[in-house]
Each structure stands twice: as structure tokens, then as C-alpha cells.
């Protein structure tokens, strides 16, 4: 019985790994239209800059209250860690989103 359970869960693991969509955080998206992407980025630059400032503000206001800033956090785990911090520090949804834009732009 336990062998069946083990095999089932291992098969689920393999299935999950094969079915996983490629995440944005797994690496930079290959630019199919680099010129369009650059144009979009330049239009969004002022808004992105403001958003990054807000995120940095949330970071320096909240995170450092308890611990030193974490360095070198891989982008693929940033969302998970910020969720964990949102629970611990009772952050708002807006602060969470600002943090994510700052830590994983």
C-alpha cells in the first residue's frame, strides 16, 4: 500500500514538473519584438520608477524593522518570500505588490 502511495506521489511530481508553465521568474522572456518591447518600456519608465520608489520605501520602512535586508534573493522565490513576510509583518496587499515590483522588476 505504501509503495502504491509513494509511486503515485512520485508520478504526480513528474507530472507537475512537466506541466509547469514557464514562469516569468525563471529567466528573462526572449524578446520576440525587441523594438516594441523597448518602446513599451520607455513609455512605462516614469510609472515604473515611481512604483520602484514605492517598493523601496516599503522595503526600507518595513523589512529593516526586524532584520537586515536580504541580499541576492533569486527572483523565482521572491514571490514566495514576500507572501511569507506579508503574513509575518501584516503587510497590506498594496505593499506586497509594491515590494514585488521593487524586488523583481
Amino acid at each position, binding site marked *: 500500500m*505504501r*509503495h502504491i*502511495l*509513494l509511486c*503515485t*506521489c*512520485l508520478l*504526480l*511530481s513528474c*507530472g*507537475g*514538473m*512537466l*506541466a*509547469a*508553465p514557464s*514562469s*516569468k*521568474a*525563471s*529567466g528573462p522572456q526572449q524578446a520576440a519584438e525587441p523594438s516594441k518591447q523597448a518602446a513599451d518600456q520607455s513609455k512605462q519608465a516614469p510609472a515604473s520608477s515611481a*512604483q520602484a520608489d514605492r517598493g523601496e520605501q516599503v522595503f526600507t*520602512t518595513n523589512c*529593516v*524593522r*526586524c*532584520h*537586515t*535586508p*536580504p*541580499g*541576492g*534573493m*533569486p*527572483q*523565482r*522565490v*521572491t*514571490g*514566495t*518570500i*514576500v*507572501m*511569507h513576510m*506579508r*503574513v*509575518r509583518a*501584516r*503587510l*497590506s*496587499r*498594496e*505593499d*506586497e*505588490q509594491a515590494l*514585488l*515590483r521593487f*524586488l*523583481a*522588476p
Partner: protein
Amino acid sequence: MLTRLTKSGLYLAIVACFVALPGLVSAQEADNHAGHIPLISGGMGYVQNWNGGVTSLEPQINPVLLVPFGSHVLLESRVDFTGFFQHEHQTYGSFTGKVFKTVEFAQVDWLANTHAIATFGRYLLPFGIYNERLQPIWIKNLQDSPITATIGTRSGGAGTGPMARGVIVQRPSYSAQYSAYYSMPSDVEQLQSLKLAGGDGSLFWSKPRLEAGDSYQRVLQDRHINNVAAYVSWQPRDTHIDLKAEYDYSYYGNGYWLESAYLLDRPEIPALFRRIQMVGRVQQFVPLHGGGNSLPRVNQQRLDVGLNYNLRDNLRMVSSYGRSFSSTGDANVWNIGFTYRFTLPLWPERK
């Protein structure tokens, strides 16, 4: 009763499921590249302690498992493995001891919205600021806990059952947060908890980075007692000063602790010394009704000074000296060691 092999198989199966499920659930936001990958994080370290001539060796590791299901549900758990070794005959002889294992928390969080995060499972009791925020080895500035740390945090500092927490109101200049919980009694080994209910509320002023809060807890078993804490935390902007203070009251005693920490991170200081953090703590405890219940039975005061050195952002050397004063005798307390914070993604990066 499960056999050891069945238990191992069950643990492996559970881990395999958790590794698999995030791959089936996507969680992407439009304006960031943050991933929601399960990981193991946490802290580890080693502290050697000398207390009144008695040496203790305390290795410790606290892995934290974080498994998100989308961007609104998080499964998280932390286990503590702490070794405690002393001389066979207190001050001489070979070292002997054991490793203590505790499930500090194992909970499921539903991040519903800004105002409500629903938690169920075994959770850290939100009483005061030490238990939930400052207790991890890689966070705390001084390795010895305050004398009053056990007020409101009996039975491993955890409760079992439901908890709600979140933001009551948020404005540019301030925000108000809350926590409310109910804990069921449990006498399962390593998962003990008391029957109690309580809550916490705090105000945070963002510009001065000043927080003030209050915790209340009612124990609903044995001697039904009230526990109360009031705390302040302040990190003035443009400085590297960290000030914290807490007053705790229980049926068995009351006391306070004040702690300040200063990181020498100023441009006029040579780079080598900018990683130094100086810490000081003063505390006092007065027993009531004879004390006990993991609290001292006599008046006690203690002064600690510490020096920490951040080798890297996740690796530091820690050291402290404390002097404890009580009617049963004064004692010198020394600590020296290191702490390390680690992060281990459980999902490979895709190329």
C-alpha cells in the same frame, strides 16, 4: 501506530506532492517577475554559552518550508532542532546532552485581502514582539531571550487553531494592524499548546518608523489568567539605530526589557568596522504569587552588551556579555558563536 518505514514513506510522499503542486498552479503578476517557487529557508548557528561557570554548547538549525499555492495561499512550517550539551558533572567531564526537536509552526495562510489573512494550524502566538518577530537565531541581536519571553508564549510559543490578522487601515503616514486567535489544547509530543484566546493590535507611523502595540491573552484552562504586553519599536530614519522595548504582565510576574542596537554603517568609519553592530539590553523581572510557570521565583535584573559582526548579509559572528543580579546570586553570562541564514529553492530555474 505507523511503522518507522511507513512514516518515512509518508513524509516523502507529502514532500513530493508539495514539490509537484506549485507546477500545476500558476501565479504570475503582470508588472513583476517574482516567482512563487517552494523553498526551504531559515537559520542555523552555533552558540557557546558560559553562565555562572557552567558551559553549554548549543548548535541550532531552524529550517522553514514555504510552499505557495498561487499567490493567495501559503503553506509554511518551521522546525527547530536545538542541541544542548553540558559537562557531565556541570563544570567538568565530557560533554553530554541531547537534541531537542520542536515544530514551531505548521500553518496554512489564506491571504484573502489587505484586511484579512486567515491562518489555520499551528502558529506562533502573536504576543509582544519577541516571539513572532525576533526569536529566530539569525534575527535576534542577543542570543539569550528576555526574562519575560515566556509570558504569553507557554507551550512552545505556539497555538493550535484559527487566527486572523491583517491591516485595519493604511494611510500614507500610518497604519494599524491586528491579530486575533483561538488556540485549542494539545498534548501531542512536539505539538503542545494551551487552550487560550487573544489578540494583538499595533499602530505604525511610517515616517519616523515608530510602532506601538498591545497584546492581550486569556488562558482558558487550569488557572484562567490574563497576560498582557505593551511594546514599542523605533528605527529612526537616516540612522542605523534599532530601539525596542516591551513590558509584560502575567499572574506569575511582570517585567520589562529595553534593547538598543547600533550598526556602525557610516561613511566616515573604515569599511572593516562598518559591519559591527553594538547591542545593549537592560531588563527587570518581579515575580507575583511566587513566580514559576517558567518564570523566576525571585526578583531579577540583567544587563547585556553585545557585539555582532556581519561577515555577509546572511552570515554573522555574535558575542555578548551579561550580568545577572538576583537574591539567589549574581552571575556572569557570556555568549559567542555564529548565525547563518539560508535560502534553498526547491524548483530548478528554467533556461
